[in-house]
């Protein structure tokens, strides 16, 4: 059975005890680990966005931190 991986620390996301700070931290960080396989991704951040590449599952992308206003 496959598990879902935390994009910040790479561990099993179902084990909440492992991710006390991950959700909040992810507001200001791009993903580092592939959610599907847990591999570390190659992440490029630029002023207006980011891209994250998993060798197995391809590229995801995003912008800046969520607007607070």
């Amino acid at each position: 059975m496959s598990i879902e991986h935390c994009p910040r620390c790479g561990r099993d996301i179902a084990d909440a005890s492992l991710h006390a700070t991950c959700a909040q931290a992810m507001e200001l960080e791009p993903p580092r680990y592939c959610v599907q396989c847990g591999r570390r991704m190659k992440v490029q951040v630029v002023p207006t966005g980011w891209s994250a590449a998993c060798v197995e599952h391809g590229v995801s992308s995003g912008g800046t931190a969520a607007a607070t206003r």
Partner: protein
Amino acid sequence: MATDTHDGSDILDRARAQVLDRGEGLDEAGILEILRLPDERISEALQLAHDVRMRWCGPEVEVEGIVSLKTGGCPEDCHFCSQSGLFSSPVRAVWLDIPSLVEAARQTAATGATEFCIVAAVRGPDTRLMTQMREGVKAIKEAVDINVAASLGMLSQEQVDELVEMGVHRYNHNLETCRSHFPAVVTTHSWEERWSTLKMVRDSGMEVCCGGILGLGETVEQRAEFAAQLAELDPHEVPLNFLNPRPGTPLEDQPVLDPKDALRAIAAFRLAMPRTIIRYAGGREITLGDLGTRDGLLGGVNAVIVGNYLTTLGRPATEDLALLQELKMPVKALSATL
């Protein structure tokens, strides 16, 4: 040169006369007094720092975007840095290609920013990186109206000359912290080696950008030492970072700097360097939040990095620009920086 006289008078009264009226920065002892002000006097210090900024720098705010040309895999052991290849950080090595670099510059310019700093996670640039820089700077200058700055680690004189010839107008090389605390933060090179690069940059005619990170475990005395050392260098710009403890680094468990201490430091650094660009750099989101960001802009800060940082995310540029508009602080225009 600062000429404090410590006659028992109130430090803010002395700073008003010395810094605001005469434009002379506080010395280390005076800076320390600012850093030790009680909580109830922080707003007064920030107001004075703001008055100093307005008098000696003007109301304009310089806006900058930064990008990592070469991410990760750094051979150095700067204890705060997620890009060191020596720590168990999740940051992997990545190179940005030239078309993407130019597009990043274009998008940065579109936000209204006039500065674009190209950064690499290296001890110093090798031939490949200098070639990438030469091609990248040329491509940016052909396509985008923006000043190009660089941050590539420690340089040789030949490399300094090359960067000048490329048209890089400002070079960043942070001292990171004071001389006495540096060995506790970095062991693979020395503070003096960084200072040598900065002297070469200064002598070359490129503008010097030099700052550091507050909250690396330094004492308040060492924070004053750092401000005084930066003032002695007299850089064109001082970027102030606040430590964002990164997973896998030796400082991952370092407590985040208290926002009141961060604001005291902003005021103190401005009162040490009345004419210098002081820039909000990394870590302000987790240390100061929105309210603290505003307090700093009204307390001596006159430049910002907008958007994302090198490996972490920042507020959208539109938010910062809206805040500047609300504070009636004009964005520095490109022609004004040339």
